[in-house]
């Protein structure tokens, strides 16, 4: 029998506001433990939450970008459960009236378009962090993260392969980065993803029993964990076993999922409206205003790049796959209006430099110096090869391209007399090729051009060299 996986993803995204959701503590990663804290985010007796205005705006932007509806009336609820990283032992969240519902995201997997429905988007506060020192009977609590604004984005079970999930996550992350509301850095925990997966025979409509997968630390891990879990569930079913509804943890080292051994309690979160926060309203005009403030999203940019610059979809996809890259491209275009040439440089040599360190700033690369390099190549001042070595030098030292050309004497030799001199020298030691050409072997010309280039240390202008050579050989 053939089986298919049915996958739904629950993504938590930290919003990149200056302060936490309900207090004025800095919302930043990497501070010393328990230093970004105050009575409110510690849930100290007597403290009260007051919502950060930016949080609702950011959340609404995401909801609109994901094509969801936005409620006109927004309230918060308390979700009650005990955990040492949860200072009040309840989490301020949204229960029966999430900020947004009925969204979707269109993705393309292996050329096939798919629409993934997004069930709900709601706001809540993040918990603190627990550290479990090995070999001790204790855990340590750091509340720096407690109260960070968190957006929960829940998809419908519309994903039907681990690759679907991977593409959905990548596109979601890209959209969030374009909106500028989150770093979406899984390593820092600013994006976290849990996955629900069940399997069923192809053609069956009824859903199978699902398992919830946790502890994946990268999009790749999500994909591999889903691949593993799909195989595991199919194998169980084929062996005549039943799938148990449970939470399973992904073990990165063992590349397998494992049932959480501790018995889980039935969830009874006792939600009720948060009495400390009066409700919030969005008028239709508010929503319109927020929609207007949305930046161009990845899909729109892709379409524009294809339509305005005549790019193939593949090249355009590479350019928009990183907001900084696409912004850089457009900044270059303003200085030097040659979209294809800039794109070729970016997708080719620039991206290979960027690979290890995805920041233009760290590479000392500005639109000014990249377009300068391109124009040096295009106007024949330097060779294409020399252009690439200038780029490498810029990335290394940050020196202006002009300076590098001067210092390394990379200027192309276009001077006819100088080139003629080289050609004579080359002709003198390659008599055979000269004869071959005379005998009608066109290939010989290319060889001789190569020799001229070599002799000139790569600096000869190849086009002029070729013309001069052809002229010289005619003489013989």
């Amino acid at each position, binding site marked *: 029998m053939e089986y298919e996986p049915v996958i739904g993803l629950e993504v938590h995204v930290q919003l990149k506001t*200056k302060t936490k959701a309900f207090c004025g503590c800095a919302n930043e990663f990497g501070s010393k433990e328990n*230093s970004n804290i105050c009575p409110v985010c510690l849930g100290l007796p007597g403290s009260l939450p*007051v919502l*950060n205005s930016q949080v609702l705006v950011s959340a609404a932007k995401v909801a609109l970008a994901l094509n969801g509806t936005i409620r006109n009336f927004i309230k918060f609820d308390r979700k009650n459960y005990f955990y040492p990283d949860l200072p009040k032992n309840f989490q301020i969240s949204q229960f029966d009236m999430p900020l947004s519902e009925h969204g979707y995201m269109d993705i393309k997997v292996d050329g096939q378009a798919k629409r993934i429905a997004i069930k709900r988007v709601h706001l809540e506060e993040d918990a603190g962090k627990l550290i*479990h020192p090995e070999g001790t009977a*204790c855990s*340590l609590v750091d509340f720096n993260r407690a109260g960070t604004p968190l957006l929960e984005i829940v998809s419908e079970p519309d994903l039907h392969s681990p690759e679907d999930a991977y593409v959905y996550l990548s596109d979601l992350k890209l959209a969030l980065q374009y909106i500028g509301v989150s770093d979406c850095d899984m390593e820092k925990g600013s994006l976290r993803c849990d996955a629900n997966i069940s399997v069923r025979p192809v053609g069956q409509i009824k859903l199978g029993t699902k398992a919830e997968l946790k502890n994946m630390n990268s999009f790749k891990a999500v994909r591999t964990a889903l691949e593993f879990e799909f195989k595991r569930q199919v194998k169980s079913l084929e062996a005549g076993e039943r799938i148990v509804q449970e939470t399973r943890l992904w073990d990165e080292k063992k590349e397998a999922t494992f049932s959480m051994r501790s018995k889980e309690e039935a969830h009874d979160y006792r939600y009720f409206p948060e009495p400390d926060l009066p*409700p919030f309203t969005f008028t239709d005009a508010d929503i319109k205003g927020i929609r207007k403030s949305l930046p161009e999203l990845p899909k729109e940019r892709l379409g524009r790049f294809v339509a305005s610059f005549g790019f193939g979809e593949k090249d355009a996809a590479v350019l928009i796959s990183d907001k900084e890259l696409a912004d850089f491209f457009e900044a270059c275009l303003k200085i030097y209006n040659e979209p294809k040439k800039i794109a070729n440089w970016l997708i080719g040599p620039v991206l290979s430099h960027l690979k290890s360190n995805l920041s233009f700033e760290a590479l000392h690369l500005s639109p000014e110096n990249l377009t300068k390099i391109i124009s040096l190549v295009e106007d024949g001042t330097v060779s294409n090869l020399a252009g690439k070595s200038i780029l490498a030098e810029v990335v290394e030292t940050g020196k202006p391209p002009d300076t590098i050309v001067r210092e390394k004497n990379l200027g192309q030799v276009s001077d006819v007399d100088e080139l003629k001199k080289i050609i004579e020298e080359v002709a003198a030691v390659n008599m055979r090729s000269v004869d071959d050409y005379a005998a009608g072997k066109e290939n010989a010309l290319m060889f001789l051009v190569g020799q001229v280039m070599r002799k000139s240390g790569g600096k000869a202008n190849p086009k002029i060299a070729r013309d001069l050579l052809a002229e010289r050989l005619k003489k013989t």
Partner: protein
Amino acid sequence: MAISKEEVKYIANLARLGLAEAEVEHFREQLGSILGYIDKLKKVDVSKIIPMAHVLDIKNVYRQDTVLPSIDPQKVLQNAPSREGQFFKVPKVIE
């Protein structure tokens, strides 16, 4: 309204409240009589009433996204029953 000992234990566990057996029975009785009294609310026709979560008609109370100074951690940690360095310390959380 009668409620069972099991219900009291279930509730006590949700509330992380350790109860001795005698207390379970004691609270079962008292809870039953209070819930019996509360049952009078069933007489009220509330079919057309919207639940009132906030008595005041105020909305949209925000704080600006401006950083304020945090509290001195020592001021908070001095109250901790158990700590290690600048961390609060608890019995091991089983993951």
